[in-house]
C-alpha cells in the first residue's frame, strides 16, 4: 500500500484543542498515526480523558484542561506542554461546542459562553502558537469548523456565528502569517456522527436523506484530510476552508 511520504508528520509536535463534541479522539489518532506527537488541551476532564484513552505511545498521553480561557490557565498548560516538547509545529482547534435555542431566548451569558468556548479559546491558542511558529518560521494551524459557518440554521444563530468567526479568523491569520511560512486553514464539517450507525437507521433522519451521499460523515472521513492540511506538503493553501459534507454545500 504505497502512501506518499509527503503525508508524514514524523517528528512534528502538535497541540489539539477541543471545547466539545466527541470527534477529537479520532482527530488525535489520525495525527499520531501520521507520526506526530500530540498534546491535548480540553475544556473539561472528560473531553481530555476521551482523547488520551484512545492514544497509543507514552509521549502522546499528555494534556491539560482549560475550563475557561485565561492568561494564567494558558501559561500553566503551555508549561506542561514545554516539559515534553521543544517546539510547536501544528495546532488543531476542534472548538465546536454546540448550542441551539430560539434566538429571542438566548441570554447574554449563553452568547458569551458559546463564543468563549469556541472563539476566545481558539483566539488564545492561535496567538500562543502563532508567536512560536512565526519565530521559528514554520507552522500549520487547522481550525475544524461546522459548515454552519457558511449557512444559517433556525435556533443555531449563536453557534453558527461562533463558527463563522473561526472562518474569518482563519482567513486573516493565513494572510497575516503567510510570509512566516505558517499556514492557517479550516476544515469544515457537515453532519457527522462518531457512532457507526447502520445506514437504514441513519436514513430515518431527514437531514441524511437530504444529503446527496445519503449518509452521515464519520470522523475517519476527515482524518486523512486533517493530516494533509497539517503536513509540510500543504504549502500553497492558506486562509481557506475545505468542506467535507457529503455534497450538502452543492445542494440547493
Amino acid at each position, binding site marked *: *500500500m*504505497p*502512501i*506518499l511520504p*509527503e*503525508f508524514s508528520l514524523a517528528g512534528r509536535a502538535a497541540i489539539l484543542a477541543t471545547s466539545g463534541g466527541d470527534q477529537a479522539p*479520532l482527530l488525535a*489518532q*489520525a495525527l499520531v*498515526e*501520521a507520526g506526530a506527537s500530540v498534546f491535548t488541551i480540553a475544556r473539561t476532564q472528560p473531553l481530555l480523558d476521551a482523547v488520551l484513552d484512545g492514544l497509543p505511545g507514552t509521549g502522546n498521553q499528555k494534556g491539560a484542561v482549560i475550563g475557561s480561557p485565561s492568561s494564567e490557565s494558558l501559561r500553566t498548560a503551555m508549561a506542561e506542554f514545554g516539559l515534553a516538547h521543544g517546539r510547536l509545529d501544528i495546532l488543531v482547534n476542534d472548538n465546536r461546542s454546540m448550542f441551539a435555542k430560539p434566538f429571542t431566548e438566548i441570554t447574554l451569558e449563553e452568547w458569551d459562553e458559546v463564543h468563549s468556548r469556541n472563539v476566545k479559546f481558539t483566539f488564545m491558542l492561535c496567538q500562543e502558537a502563532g508567536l512560536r511558529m512565526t519565530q521559528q518560521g514554520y507552522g500549520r494551524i487547522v481550525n475544524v469548523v461546522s459548515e454552519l459557518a457558511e449557512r444559517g440554521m433556525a435556533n443555531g444563530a449563536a453557534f453558527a456565528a461562533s463558527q463563522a468567526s473561526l472562518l474569518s479568523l*482563519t*482567513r486573516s491569520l*493565513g*494572510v*497575516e502569517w*503567510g*510570509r512566516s*511560512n505558517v*499556514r492557517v486553514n479550516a476544515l469544515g464539517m457537515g453532519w457527522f456522527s462518531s457512532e457507526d450507525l447502520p445506514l437504514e437507521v441513519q436514513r430515518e433522519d431527514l437531514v441524511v436523506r437530504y444529503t*446527496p*451521499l*445519503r*449518509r452521515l*460523515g*464519520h470522523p*475517519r*472521513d*476527515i*482524518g*486523512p*484530510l486533517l*493530516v*494533509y492540511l497539517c*503536513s509540510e*506538503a*500543504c*504549502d*500553497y*493553501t*492558506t*486562509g*481557506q476552508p*475545505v*468542506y*467535507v*459534507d*457529503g*455534497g*450538502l*454545500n*452543492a*445542494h440547493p
Partner: protein
Amino acid sequence: MLETLSLDDRVVVITGGGTGLGLAMVRALARAGANLSIAGRRQGPIDDAAAEVKALGRDSLAVSTDVTDSAQVDRLIAATMDHFGHIDVLINNAGAVLEAVRKPIWEITDQEWHSEMDVNLTGAFFCARSASKPMADRGSGKIINVASGFGLRGGRDIYMYCCSKGGMIQLTRVLSFNLARHGITANTIVPGFIPTVNASESMGNSVPQSGDLLPIGKLGKPEDLGPLAVFLSSEASDYMSGEMFIADGGGLAAGIAPAGHAPVVPLEA
C-alpha cells in the same frame, strides 16, 4: 485510517497529463500507486509521461486526444476501459493555457469565444459525460475538475478563461448533486498562480513573475498539486463532494492587492 490515502492499482484518467500541472499530478499519482491513462493532444509528451509511470512500476496508457471532439473523448474512455477494465478517477485538467486570449471585449471574435470555452469547459463536460457512465455502472467513481482562481474573480481582458473556469466550479456542483446516487463524487482543485512554461508564454504579464503580491510571498510549484490530487483521488476523500480545494498562496483569502498589513488602529473611545 491513513491507508485510505493509498491509490494501490486505482485507475486514473487525466487529460492534459503530458505537461505542466498535469504531469506533476501524474508523477504523484503513480508514486501513490495509481495506474494512469494519460490524454493530451500531442503524442510526444504523453508518451514520455506514460514511460515515467511505467518506470515507477505502474501501468500506463497514452491516448492522443483532443477533448473538444466528443468522438475522440469517447475513444479515450473506451481505450481506457479496454486496457484497465474500469475507471476509478477522471481528472479534467486539459485547458487552453497556451492559447488563452487576452483582448478588450470588442476585439474578441465569436470563434475565439467558442474555441476557448470548448477547450476549457466543453471538453471537461464531454469527458465527465463519457467517463461517468462506466463509473455509474460500477457504482463508484471520482471526478476532479481543475479550475483556477480566475474562476472566482475577474482578470483584465481575461473573458473566456474566467468564464470557463467559473463554469468548471459549477460543473463540479451539478455533477456532484446528480451523480451522488451512482456513488460518484466530484470536486474542484482551484489553483492560484503556478508558473508553468505554458502559462508564462500565453498569459504574459497577467501571471505574476514573483510572489511579491501573494500573502505567502512566493508562487506555487506544479508539485504543490501532487499530494492534493492524490488525496482527492483516494478513498480518504469519499465523503467530500461538490467542493473546492483552493491552493493559491492566500490570494483569494486576501485579494491580490498589495497584500500588506492594515495600520495599527487603537480601539475607539
